[in-house]
């Protein structure tokens, strides 16, 4: 038998993320009898869409073939109508079992044997129907509730006592992401991490993705480390924000602190950003900057009082760009805007990423990985770092959709800002 799995995936609407789904099996001499094309045609004619989940073609004439087709329709009624018709043509619904759901017996923990999620689109079978999981996120549990039922990912810490949680793998399935039919802007990146790629091409691809994301009405997320400021790139990022290319910023205390330090003293960690020399008592600058902001009550107050007049954080306030600053154990201060409760920071980031369509992770291992953990696999992630290990780490932790660019941050951001400013 010739085994081809998974084979050609086809969809009427690639972003069909709603509606009811039923898997049917068609077997026999479905190629020569034209039953397979006929069944697929009928699904489309009746207003449904399909994906071929599995297709094994017999090699000898007497060998039967087998295809598993996921049929999708807008409503359960429409789906029943389509599946009812397909049965007439020999298709047979694969009555999978419903997912097993048990109430959480301990608050802040999943029941034993809980289903652990991935960042890929997932479906759960409830009441004989496959439903799409919302808020897809890796390393979470699945909760199912309501009528009609909905399913979503829930973090361990956010489980209240009694929350219905899916246990086991029965009735849960991961839907592999479709490879884009159009050549991806990153199609040339046959390897996912490389320093040996033409930078101009990579850069234009990033710029193209940012433009496409904005045109699609989605947000661009920037996750940045303090190296952005240390390398003298804060101005480029400020420009990207000012020109409307970034809608969301995730960072830690350090990026915001050194950005404000630069605004106040034109230094970063006490190094003069124009001369590149360490200034006497320069190491105190970032502490004085933090202290000033704490005295004023926060970054917004500093901007509104006219004390902070330039830089990344200034542009965020001015342009209404949301930011989440998450704290860590080594933080000085920190700035009053920094969320020091790690779980609270995760929740704030989780809430903020809902409409993100493109994420640019620059020079930040900690916040980059944290963000990668939260993003569904459908969000394109580009990670720019001088250190290839940062990108590798991200991929190793499951954010496999990451494209890595090994390059110095400053020329990258300078060129990106210039590219996006172009006609």
């Amino acid at each position, binding site marked *: 038998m010739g085994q081809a799995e998974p084979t050609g995936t086809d969809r009427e609407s690639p972003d069909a993320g709603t509606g009811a789904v039923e898997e049917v099996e068609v*077997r*026999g*001499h479905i190629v*020569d*009898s*034209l*039953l397979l*094309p*006929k069944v697929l045609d009928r699904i489309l004619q009746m207003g449904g869409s399909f994906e071929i989940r599995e297709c094994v073609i017999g090699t000898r*004439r*007497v060998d*039967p073939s087998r295809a598993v087709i996921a049929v999708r329709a807008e409503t359960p009624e429409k789906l029943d109508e389509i599946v009812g018709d397909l*049965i*007439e*043509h*020999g*298709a*047979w619904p694969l009555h999978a079992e419903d997912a097993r759901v048990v109430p959480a017996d301990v608050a802040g923990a999943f029941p034993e044997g809980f289903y652990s999620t991935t960042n890929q689109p997932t479906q759960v079978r409830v009441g004989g129907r496959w439903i799409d999981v919302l808020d897809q996120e890796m390393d979470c549990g699945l909760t199912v509730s309501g009528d009609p039922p909905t399913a979503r990912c829930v973090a361990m810490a956010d489980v209240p006592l009694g929350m219905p949680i899916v246990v086991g793998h029965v009735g849960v399935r991961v839907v592999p992401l479709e490879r884009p039919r159009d050549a991806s802007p990153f199609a040339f990146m046959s390897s996912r991490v490389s320093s040996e790629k033409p930078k101009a091409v990579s850069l234009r691809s990033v710029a193209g993705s940012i433009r496409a994301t904005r045109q699609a009405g989605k947000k661009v997320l920037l996750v940045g480390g303090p190296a952005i400021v240390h390398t003298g790139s804060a101005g480029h990022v400020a420009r990207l924000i000012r020109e409307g290319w970034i809608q969301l910023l995730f960072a830690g205390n350090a990026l915001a602190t050194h950005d404000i330090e630069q605004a106040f003293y034109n230094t970063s960690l006490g190094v003069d950003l124009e001369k590149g020399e360490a200034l006497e008592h320069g190491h105190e600058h970032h502490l004085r900057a933090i202290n000033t902001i704490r005295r004023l009550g926060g970054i917004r107050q500093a901007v509104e009082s006219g004390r902070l007049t330039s830089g990344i954080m200034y542009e965020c306030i001015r342009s209404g760009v949301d930011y989440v600053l998450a704290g860590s154990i080594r933080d000085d201060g920190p700035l009053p805007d920094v969320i020091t409760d790690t779980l609270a920071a995760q929740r704030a980031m989780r809430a903020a990423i809902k409409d993100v369509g493109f994420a640019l992770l620059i020079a930040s291992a900690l916040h980059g990985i944290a963000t990668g953990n939260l993003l569904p696999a459908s969000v394109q992630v580009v990670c720019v770092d001088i250190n290839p290990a940062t990108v590798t780490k991200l991929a190793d932790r499951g954010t496999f959709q990451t494209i890595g660019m090994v390059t110095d941050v400053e020329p990258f951001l300078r060129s990106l800002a210039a590219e996006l400013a172009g006609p």
Partner: protein
Amino acid sequence: MVKTPWILMCPPRFYGIEYEINPWMNRRVKSDPDKAARQWQALHDALIGLGAAVELLEPVEGLPDLVFTANAGLVYRDLFLSSRFRYGERQGETPVFDRWFAEHGFRVEHTPDGMHFEGAGDALFCGETLFAGYRFRSDARTMSWVGDRLGVEVLPLELVDPRYYHLDTCFCPIAPNAAIYFPGAFDEYGRSVLQDRIWTLIEVSAEEAFSFSCNAVVVGRSVLLNRGAPKLARELERLGFAAVPLDLTEFIKAGGSAKCLTFRLDGEDAASWRTAASAATG
């Protein structure tokens, strides 16, 4: 040496239009028992005249359609795959057929529960492939099961006109690479499959199909069919077959004709497995 064609028929002693399970049947249009008996006898005698050995199944009162032995099941070598009739009206025939086949040396098997299958009415070998009609009487899924059971290629074809509710009312293989068919009984997919897979495919006009000319019995180079298909007769002659027209009007009132009244026990002439078997034993 060629094996003697071996055919099962059932005299129309209890035949009549007692219910309506296809568009041809109308209880107000009764069949004439004497005329039916004469027409049946003429078919029987014509088959004997062509050198066939005809077995007779004892008719059963209350089973008027038992005369249509073609729907008993499907024979493949010594296996008899018994029909699972869609309508209750005909389900009583199954034990009668099963008993006869068991008594005559066949292994009797059934399709799984709920899988409708009306035997040689809907499953016809042409060459090595089993062409199978579905929708009105047999299920497409059952046909795939049959293919698995027999280890043969099965091509299910949707029947789209309720007047041609069985495959043998609109399609008749006459040789391993030749068949007659009425295109209007199939959809585009079905027509494509037939055109692609059968070397010589003779189209029957709507008018001639309506006189049940596709429901023909093939014995060697003779094709026995209801009278009223002169164009088809000429086509058959051109290919070296002799059309044998018969009056079968009383049976058409029930939606059956020559083919429906016979069951080829040793495999149809168009079935490659029969030819191979004769070569092996001959």
